[in-house]
């Protein structure tokens, strides 16, 4: 299963590429599969490609869930 971790688009690059911030780490990804991506958008990533855009509210909910899951996992260790 591939978890949907939202990444914040920080910069568009040539060749349908973009810089995103994911959990504080900057990565370059392809945005060739999704139209109209711009800085400030949240995207869901899979193997280096943006799969879809999600709105900021949805992204915040998902990040909160994943943070909760991470905290639960940490507590269990």
């Amino acid at each position, binding site marked *: 299963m591939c978890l*949907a971790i939202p990444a914040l688009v920080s910069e568009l690059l040539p060749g349908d590429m973009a810089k995103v911030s994911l959990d504080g780490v900057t990565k370059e990804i392809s945005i060739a*599969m*999704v139209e109209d991506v711009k800085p400030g958008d949240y995207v869901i990533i899979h193997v280096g490609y943006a799969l879809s855009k999600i709105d900021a509210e949805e992204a915040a*909910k998902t990040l909160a*869930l994943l943070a909760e899951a991470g*905290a639960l*996992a940490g507590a269990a260790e």
Partner: protein
Amino acid sequence: MTSTAAFGPGAIALSVAVAPPDEGGGVIDVKVASTRPVGFSTALFVNRPADEIPALVGRLHALCGLSHTAAAAMAIAAARGRDASAEAAARFDGLLAERLGEHLRSTFLGPAGAPPGEVPRDMLADLRVVLAATRELVTAAGRTPANEPHRDAIERARAAVSRLGPALDATGALRLPPASWAAGVAERFGPASGDVHLDADPLTGADDTTIVAALAADPTGFAAHPRFSGRRPETGPLARAAARGPIEAGRRLDARLAEIAAAVDLLAAPAAARRRALADWVDAVAIDGHTGCAAVESPRGRLHHLVRLDGIGRVAFYAILAPTEWNFGPDGPFAATIRANRPTADEAGRARVERIAAAFDPCVGFAVTVEERQRA
């Protein structure tokens, strides 16, 4: 600052050890090491109201989110002693769209396709059209009254798939126009590749009773490492095709392309045809008065969700068994297929392993290494 690091998307490391040429070559060992998160659903869902779970599980999965949502809704309905089929029926157009979009995208990406920069712009444009249409249909699933199809989105997807190539003739056989994108994919993965493929032992609905019993007895363990004694079940497009009738094992990519064509045809078919097809996609069963299990034929194969509810409708336990666990198990069909091939410890051998892995289409990214090792 909160961190999601404990639950990254994960990946699969595929490590193949081969004997050197002076020892005759051949595969010595295949290791499948996964960092995919397992068991997070139990940690996250326990004590939540069950009605929250279908939306939550869909949001958490980057791939096949609607299949997860449908499986959750069906398992919860079964646990409550209710009719689970309505949950699937309300989302069936979305499930069809999800299969279409996932298959098309995974075939464009990685070894099956070509980097986006190398894909002709018209083909990339068609891919985008299909993905946008399928996202629209997936988002609408379960929300539109009476599952009213979005005709415009369906027609846009149908036209773009037609240009990309895969189509079914009147007998249901796959047809690929020469020089089409799909014909090129089939050529790269077909007999000319020299890859050896093994016949699939398909995982089907007939196996659900055994799976449900195993999941109920050991939900966490079986969900992480499913296995049947004496069998090596495969799930996904080739397995679904093999369950319907004979198909050459080397036609794994053809089976996926055929499902792309079939999904777009079904989306455009009359509602009665879609209702008939639904029976082969989903199932759900009540295990006892508070436990339910559901199976959904997700794009990459049969997906199982098990839920146990407490006395006030909250989740007491949750387990998800994903299709990749079957196909990429330590002694699963992928590992067996690699053993049946003779990859070499060079670029061609690595490409062969990568091509075979892409044909099995795991739900997370993967990295391949092929190294020589002396036989012990």
